[in-house]
């Protein structure tokens, strides 16, 4: 019954225009033929071609992808473990310190996290490269994963696990066969979050990368500091497109699952009524 | 000398405080209120009763000013209130959810409306204290709504809506959130407060017992129309339709064909092999016209021997519902029809005579039931 009032419609329109116009402009101008990025000189996809021939960018993209896959996978395992410890392990010595170390990285300025990790790697004499970036990214993104997973675990009905134990499961089987499938959506979104955080990170990677590895954000950074460039516009458009396709697919899939569940429930009700 | 009964609706010279004139309210294709005309008088405790979706809440929200009629006019003391916004109406509402402001204390909640009127500080203090006394909440003034019980919250909501001396107080299912025992106590409290303050109350409820208990008049609604407006006893004893008879309390409904008899009685042929039922009509029925005979279970007597009565039917006890003070017997007649009869349990259980499968006689006088056209 409810409709948009003119005030709400206006504030939403202006608000979303503000959120999306800059990116839309970026996408449009990535197809600009001119090297002068602010002057429109006709449609062209030549900057995408240039981008694909630029080995430095391709190498950086490959490094970033490797780092993101590895660090988000480690972070998911560690973060899920940490979440179980937070929610289920009860009291143990040093629990306050533990939960402090989980929440602190969420609010820690990236410059400080980056600096401290760099000083550690130098202190123990670890050569900086892909490995150090993976270690750094795993550490800060496992905290995000554990927050996502623990919020799901808190609302998890523990009697399900007790039922599994009652029916003869070992605690580990109960976790693997009952708890894990149910919290799986949270674990998956934790992985996705860790993956994007890693893809996105500039500051921590800059501190921990060293000369032997360059990630895509670092490459973008060094070129945009000099100003707007058409190649970066093209690269940005590709990244925006990938994210948009990913998010829209994910939301369609989950919507379809929800619709299917509703349909099944209704069918079950009808069957019961009949 | 008996006191004059309070019945302004019977006085042709009385001016109603609220007058609905052919009011219709539509939401899109849905007609919530359908060409409705009704008067409510000062100091009345008026109940709008009906199933959910019958339009009673819409009617109330139009009085409060949250909805405007699609057609027709609503007069408050002769003034058309359609152009008056809710915050300018001398009408206050007690919400079903109570809608107590969670960030304000009990005291501040009650004072909220008074402050809006720009009342002097001392007057506000006095008025809030008076309301706290009236609703027995003095000791809870500083608490927040989540720190008091459901019954106390209900009284805060009442105090808040009464604080501004409204000409009309609207109560939307005011007791719906309370449990049964508390609800019964609160009903009497509400009547008491209504009498003390002399405010006109309009209550919306789907609970017929509640409406019967508190109201001076009850309006039974269905599908946006008012089916009957009358005092609780008139609604119960002389419903104007099978809908009202069925909605209020328990009833046996029997459909048959009318035949006029002498001395203003009517005979109803209703089932093969059963004697015709004799009743007293209040309106004209033609011979052969369909008639609905409605009789309350407590007006049907049950006995082992055939009694001397205008109507007597024989059957077998199918079910007994023992409710403590009364018992309801479901008696199956030879043709398979079931009639309910109710008796007061004046004696202890062990002394009672009827049990399952017993053959019994049901009887009632020729004035016990009501004859309805529809």
């Amino acid at each position, binding site marked *: 019954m409810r409709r948009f009032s003119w005030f709400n419609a206006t504030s939403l329109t202006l608000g979303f225009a503000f959120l999306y116009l800059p990116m839309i402009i970026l996408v449009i101008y990535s197809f600009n033929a001119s090297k002068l990025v602010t002057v429109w000189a006709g449609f062209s996809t030549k900057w995408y071609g240039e981008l694909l021939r630029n080995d430095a960018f391709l190498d950086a993209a490959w490094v970033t992808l490797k780092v993101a896959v590895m660090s988000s996978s480690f972070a998911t395992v560690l973060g899920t473990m940490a979440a179980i410890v937070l929610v289920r392990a009860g009291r143990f010595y040093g629990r306050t310190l533990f939960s402090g170390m989980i929440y602190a990285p969420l609010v820690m300025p990236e410059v400080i996290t980056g600096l401290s990790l760099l000083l550690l790697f130098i202190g123990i004499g670890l050569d900086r490269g892909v490995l150090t970036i993976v270690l750094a990214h795993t550490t800060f993104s496992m905290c995000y994963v554990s927050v996502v997973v623990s919020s799901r675990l808190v609302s998890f009905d523990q009697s399900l696990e007790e039922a599994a134990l009652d029916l003869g499961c070992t605690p580990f089987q109960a976790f693997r066969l009952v708890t894990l499938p149910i919290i799986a959506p949270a674990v998956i979104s934790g992985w996705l979050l860790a993956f994007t955080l890693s893809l996105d990170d500039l500051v921590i990677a800059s501190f921990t990368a060293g000369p032997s590895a360059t990630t895509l954000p670092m490459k973008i950074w060094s070129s945009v500091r000099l100003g707007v460039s058409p190649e970066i516009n093209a690269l940005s458009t590709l990244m925006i497109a990938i994210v948009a396709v990913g998010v829209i697919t994910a939301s369609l899939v989950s919507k379809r699952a929800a619709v299917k569940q509703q349909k099944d429930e209704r069918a079950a009700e009808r069957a019961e009524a009949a | 000398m008996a006191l004059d009964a309070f019945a302004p609706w019977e006085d042709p010279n009385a001016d109603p405080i609220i007058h609905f004139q052919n009011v219709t309210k539509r939401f899109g294709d849905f007609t919530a209120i359908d060409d409705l005309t009704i008067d409510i008088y000062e100091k009345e405790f008026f109940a709008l009763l009906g199933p959910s979706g019958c339009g009673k809440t819409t009617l109330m929200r139009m009085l409060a000013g949250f909805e405007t009629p699609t057609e027709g006019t609503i007069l408050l003391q002769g003034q058309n209130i359609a152009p008056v916004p*809710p915050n300018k109406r001398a009408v206050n509402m007690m919400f079903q959810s109570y809608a107590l402001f969670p960030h304000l204390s009990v005291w501040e909640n009650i004072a909220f409306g008074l402050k809006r009127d720009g009342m002097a500080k001392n007057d506000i203090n006095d008025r809030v204290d008076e309301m706290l006394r009236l609703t027995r909440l003095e000791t809870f003034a500083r608490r927040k709504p989540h720190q008091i019980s459901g019954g106390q919250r209900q009284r805060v909501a009442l105090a808040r809506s009464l604080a501004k001396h409204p000409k009309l107080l609207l109560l939307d299912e005011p007791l719906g959130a309370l449990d049964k025992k508390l609800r019964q106590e609160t009903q009497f409290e509400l009547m008491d407060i209504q009498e003390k303050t002399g405010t006109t109350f309009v209550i919306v409820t789907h609970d017929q017992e509640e409406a019967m208990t508190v109201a001076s008049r009850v309006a039974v609604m269905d599908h946006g129309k008012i089916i009957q407006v009358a005092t609780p006893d008139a609604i119960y004893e002389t419903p104007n339709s099978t809908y009202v008879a069925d909605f209020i309390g328990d009833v046996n409904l029997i459909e048959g064909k009318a035949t006029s008899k002498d001395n203003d009685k009517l005979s109803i042929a209703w089932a093969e092999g059963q004697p015709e039922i004799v009743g007293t009509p209040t309106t004209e029925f033609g011979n052969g016209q369909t008639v609905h005979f409605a009789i309350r279970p407590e007006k049907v007597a049950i006995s082992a021997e055939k009694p001397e009565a205008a109507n007597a039917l024989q059957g077998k006890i199918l079910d007994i519902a023992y409710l403590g003070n009364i018992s309801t017997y479901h008696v199956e007649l030879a043709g398979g029809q079931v009639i309910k009869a109710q008796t007061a349990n004046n004696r202890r259980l062990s002394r009672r005579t009827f049990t399952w499968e017993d053959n019994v006689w049901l009887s009632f006088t020729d004035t016990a039931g009501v004859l309805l056209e529809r």
Partner: protein
Amino acid sequence: MRRLTLIAIPYVWLLALFLVPFLIVFKIALSDSALAIPPYVPTLDLSEGWAGFTAFLSELDFENFVWLTEDDLYWKAYLSSLKIAVISTVLTLIVGYPIAYGMARAPQEWRATLLMLVILPFWTSFLIRVYSWMGILSQEGYLNQLLMSLGLISEPLIILNTNTAVYIGIVYTYLPFMILPIYSALEKLDESLLEAAEDLGCSRFTAFWLVTVPLSKQGIIAGSFLVFIPTLGEFVIPSLLGGSKTLMIGKVLWEEFFSNRDWPVASAVAVILLLILVIPIILFQRNEQKQREAEG
């Protein structure tokens, strides 16, 4: 036993890669810078045993912190970071509240979509979102082109490389952090409370101030901290959109480290930034705690 392993693995990981590095920062903040690798003294030499350790301790001092108080660059950087963080938090609140309000009052079937539209930018690169404003705000950028073609200005406005651009960048990138907590507070708001306020004599506007705003207070506070805390240490936005006059502590730290290679001073800057952040972080935690208690 299994429980112990479960606790130990993430615990040891965080100790080694979060707490220890942190202590190292503290330690280096107390060291002196040197032209060496690593570029600071003293370094801990465990081969000399206890004597080495005490010698190491005796060489630590607060010289770098003294240095920070003497050079007014650092003072100004901290103060200007605070100022920029406060102003941009207020601006984000002003921009974000109406959007959150509009979302919470939108028809039910629209809300999931609107929510997704607010969250979607989170998934796109932060760097790219900041970068997108460079083309808009530059002197020959799209904004100036638009304003000049409309005849509103004759000379291009200088926005890029000023604090104004930094404010725009911060409001833009942190807006979702403000919208989401306010939206979740407003969505829970029972509409009959507003009707009750009107019924008791409030106009729509006073009902908004007396009921809606107080009841969304928790969301406003949470959103403000979520913007304020990361903004204080922000590096990317002031570096890309701000000018040479834009002083922010994250940028100073970065330059101290990468350009001046003065690790001890960079560490001291980090320690002080952290001390400043402790207060808002504790306040934020308390607000969250209060909210949980109110709900539970």
